[in-house]
């Protein structure tokens, strides 16, 4: 799912109370996984909360709500941010970064981040791709396309480096994107 769809989603306890809503996504492990979320209060005029939500405390990330056990799992935002930084999270926002292939081609500019929850690997929330505004190099200039990412990637806040072969696995909609990511990662795994 797109991270832009996760923001503003309510955070709901198992007792059915909406204690917060998602404000922003915190990335961990070099931008490869979701480390947690910063939160805002519910309602039109509610500001940001001092508490954040670590990914480990998320019971489920659903289409309509982020479920947590109860409100005691919320931690101070500083703690959640520090934990993500410790694991190599850049903390920098990838939106607007330029995506470069390792062949030196500019593929486009990041407009959205695609994440997927992988139950097989202990329920990590993996960053599997970016929605980018395509550049000339992709032959579909100006269009929004989805580009799969390897398990780990280099991000500087200015540039994001992806293997040149990612170009071959560009998708247009989320429906077939999961398969494209798997194929792309399998190919990388095979080559390395």
């Amino acid at each position, binding site marked *: 799912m797109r991270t832009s769809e996760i923001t503003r989603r309510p955070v*709901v*306890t198992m*007792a*059915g*109370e909406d204690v917060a809503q998602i404000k922003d996504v915190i990335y961990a492990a070099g931008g490869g996984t979701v480390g947690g979320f910063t939160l805002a209060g519910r309602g039109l005029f509610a500001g940001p909360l001092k508490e954040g939500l670590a990914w480990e405390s998320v019971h*489920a990330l659903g289409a309509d709500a982020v*479920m947590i056990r109860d409100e005691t799992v919320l931690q101070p935002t500083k703690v959640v941010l520090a934990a993500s930084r410790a694991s190599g999270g850049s903390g920098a926002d990838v939106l607007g970064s330029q995506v470069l292939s390792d062949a030196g081609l500019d593929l486009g500019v990041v407009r959205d981040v695609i994440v997927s929850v992988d139950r097989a690997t202990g329920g990590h929330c993996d960053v599997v791709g970016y929605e980018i505004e395509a550049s000339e190099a992709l032959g579909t200039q100006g269009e929004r396309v989805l580009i799969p990412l390897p398990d780990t990637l280099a991000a500087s806040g200015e540039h994001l480096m992806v293997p040149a072969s990612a170009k071959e696995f560009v998708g247009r909609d989320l429906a077939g994107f999961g398969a494209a990511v798997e194929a792309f990662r399998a190919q990388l795994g095979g080559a390395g």
Partner: protein
Amino acid sequence: MRFSEAKGRKVVSSSTAATVGKVSRFVVDPATRAVVAVELRKTQDGDVLRWSDITAFGADAVTVTDADKIGDGGEQVKALSGKSHRVLGKRVLTSTGDELGKVDDVDFDPASGALTAILVDKGPEVPAGRLLGVGSYAVVVRDEP
């Protein structure tokens, strides 16, 4: 029996044979998945009747031994009363965070007060055994295994 069917049913005292009120709303405890009390209207004093004080929840009337059983319901019932704990009309979320629809009606066993099913407006009914919580935002049910 459905909440919608039972609503408006008269409550009759078996000692005086007089109607002491009418069923208006149900107070549900999500932990025990049962009706713990009914809220009444058109009563003399107080408006809550605890389930344990009901003699019988019959097809035509609810009977109580005496009108003095009707009161404020006590602490436990008060904590579960109010808009945020009401089930009808509330959105239904699964424990995985997906919305199933809104609660249309609730089915319960008139003999024990135990809930049997939650009827959702745009989906199949949810067995009451999956109920996890009722809060101000949603009714939370366990995801299907």
